[in-house]
């Protein structure tokens, strides 16, 4: 089977890039990883994503695909005969997976990030409360989607697992930064156990950044104001 020429422009630290890489791993697609240097944007990136100028960009036979969740869906469709399906097979389940993936990006991630950008204790406390409330929604979503199986997608990792699971590295970093547990074994037990399974999946494990390294990068990206 010929996969074509596949390149991915990205960075080791990016959640969104990880989504694309997990999807490529699930389909056993070989690709050339073009690592962007932090602080600069390569010519290829600017040419391939002129609208947003952001990573990840998947380039398949010289044709660029942008936006991580769209890339994951594209990988599932372009290589539909490779490996297992990433999106659920039923239209209703697909709609639910898409809804929650959008929620992760539009609501949950925004709250998580605001912990890192919070100024002062009051703001931080409010941001933490918001993350806890939204994580609780995701716990319920997991129970609804998984239907007793190990992943959001059922027996194996899929679209929504990838959308949320890719955050697990940063989730841990924000926990350390906030000095507050954000994925609680007692409050959200299903998600807690799912997280462990997700991180140990062979298509995910090699991609998950090392916490210390990521925390150091986070300090660069979100510098603390001088006291």
């Amino acid at each position, binding site marked *: 089977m010929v996969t074509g020429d596949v390149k991915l422009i990205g960075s080791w630290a990016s959640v969104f890039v990880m989504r694309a890489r997990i999807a490529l791993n699930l389909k056993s697609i070989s690709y050339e990883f073009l690592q962007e240097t932090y602080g600069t944007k390569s010519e290829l990136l600017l040419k391939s994503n002129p*609208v947003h100028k952001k990573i990840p960009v998947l380039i398949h036979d010289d044709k660029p*695909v942008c*936006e991580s969740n*769209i890339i994951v869906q*594209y990988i599932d*469709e372009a290589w539909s005969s490779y490996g297992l399906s990433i999106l659920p097979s039923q*239209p*209703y389940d697909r*709609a639910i997976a898409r*809804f929650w993936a959008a929620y992760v990006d539009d609501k949950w991630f925004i709250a998580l990030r605001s912990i890192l950008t919070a100024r002062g204790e009051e703001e931080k406390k409010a941001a933490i409360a918001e993350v806890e409330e939204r994580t609780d929604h995701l716990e319920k979503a997991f129970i609804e989607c998984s239907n007793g199986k190990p992943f959001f997608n059922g027996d194996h990792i899929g679209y929504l697992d990838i959308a949320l699971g890719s955050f697990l590295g940063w989730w841990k970093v924000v926990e350390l930064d906030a000095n507050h547990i954000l994925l609680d074994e007692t409050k959200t037990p299903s998600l807690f156990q799912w997280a462990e399974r997700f991180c140990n999946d062979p298509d995910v494990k090699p991609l998950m950044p090392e916490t210390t390294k990521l925390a150091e990068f986070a300090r660069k990206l979100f510098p603390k104001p001088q006291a």
Partner: protein
Amino acid sequence: MAEEVILLNFWPSMFGMRTMIALKEKEVKYEHREEDLINNKSALLLEMNPIYKKIPVLIHNGKPICESVIQVQYIDEIWSDKNPLLPKDPYQRAQALFWADFIDKKLYVCGRKTWATKGEEQEEAKKEFIGILKTLQSELGDKPYFGGDRFGFLDIVLIGFYSWFPAYQKFGNFSIEPECSKLMDWGKRCMERESVATSLPDPERVGGFILQLKKLYGIE
């Protein structure tokens, strides 16, 4: 089994228009229920969309589907036997989804600023708004529709905003036609379709609605 399709909607919503158009393009029989978003959201809306409490909500045989772009994809997948809305080719689908995402990230917020802000902020918004439309016009190129020869997904995602253009121009005191004449032609072309003409409100009525919102939010 008899299909039961309900759409919870609010007439000025350019998002609700998408779902309505998609259902009509597929000739799906559905029950339209108008929500009073300003005064009183129905118990059904709150039950079916507890996360966002927003319209449109599509209820298919008792099961809710939320978010308009997700609804249009769902409609295309369920009623796949007629009038395909999304392209078949994975790359073209990815492009269509990319531009739908672009429209959702940029157009609504910017459009709102053209009537809800004043002074410097409003001037910036008007410039940005024209810029967004020019980018979309560029994507349209010389094609009759965004998808090519056939009216489809991306046309459906954008066309609802067309009914708001006259109001944006009136309240923002600017004109879209000079720099976006091809896009305006596209709008008129889409309006020739019954599904679109019967789903978009009269622009005059949209203008009246904006006046109502300005009063409600204390915007001069």
